[in-house]
């Protein structure tokens, strides 16, 4: 059995105006859920998911949301077993905002599904319906049985995907600066 390598996993934006998964492009700043897009999130990190927080938004402590899809793109029929998503605290740099992450209630679906694969929001400041649990960056890898501050996403088979939501909150009481963080996935290779 050939193990999954990180490059087999695609992080993609969402396409809120699509009618099926993996059929339309997605764009930073408007990744508002709905369906898996055809757009892999850029490795150039600046504004690749959220766009910049403007001065007025910062002063208003604005809360923004963005949807990210995780796609199992393996060609070797390997499943991502017991997949857990989390934000390593060590990856968070900068100040002026906080970040949290939640799992979309739609769960795992086929990448070309015509049934909505994630909640849809009409604006970045609107919370996604059904996302009730938000986890924060953690210094410890979430592990069984509690998976504290991790999102347990399940087993993602090849040609399947699952959505998570990011919640960004501007904190005007702190000094603003370029902010960066990482979404980490931990899973086991299975077939």
């Amino acid at each position: 059995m050939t193990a999954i390598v990180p490059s087999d996993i695609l992080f993609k934006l969402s396409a809120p105006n699509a009618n099926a998964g993996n059929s339309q492009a997605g764009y930073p700043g408007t990744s508002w859920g709905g369906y898996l897009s055809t757009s892999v999130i850029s490795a150039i990190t600046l504004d690749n998911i959220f766009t910049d927080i403007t001065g007025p938004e910062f002063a208003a402590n604005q809360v923004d949301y963005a949807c990210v899809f995780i796609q199992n793109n393996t060609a070797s029929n390997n499943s991502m077993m017991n997949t857990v998503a989390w934000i390593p605290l060590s990856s968070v740099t900068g100040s002026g905002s906080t970040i949290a992450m939640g799992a979309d209630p739609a769960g795992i679906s086929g990448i070309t599904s015509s049934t909505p694969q994630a909640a849809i929001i009409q604006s970045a400041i609107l919370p996604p319906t059904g996302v009730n649990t938000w986890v924060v960056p953690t210094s410890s890898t979430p592990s069984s049985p509690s998976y504290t501050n991790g999102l347990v996403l399940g087993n993602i088979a090849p040609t399947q995907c699952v959505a998570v939501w990011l919640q960004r909150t501007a904190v005007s009481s702190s000094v603003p600066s370029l902010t960066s963080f990482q979404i980490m996935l931990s899973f086991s290779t299975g077939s």
Partner: protein
Amino acid sequence: MFNRPPAPSLYASRIIWPLQTFLNKYIFQTTTSLVTVSVTLAYNIQESVNASITTSYNIGNPISSQIRQTSQDRMDFAY
């Protein structure tokens, strides 16, 4: 008048014992054999994998913008 059964010893030796011998030899045969039961199990050994994506963004500050504008006004007035 009544047919009494033979005396126990004669009855047993001529009827019961031969009958028992016949039954044990030809009818009530029992055999024992060793039975083996097994179950096969197999499992994969999984490997742990980590994958990640990094994102970043700037944060604007309206207060610093206002200060810069005020400074420019003062400089223009001085000239």
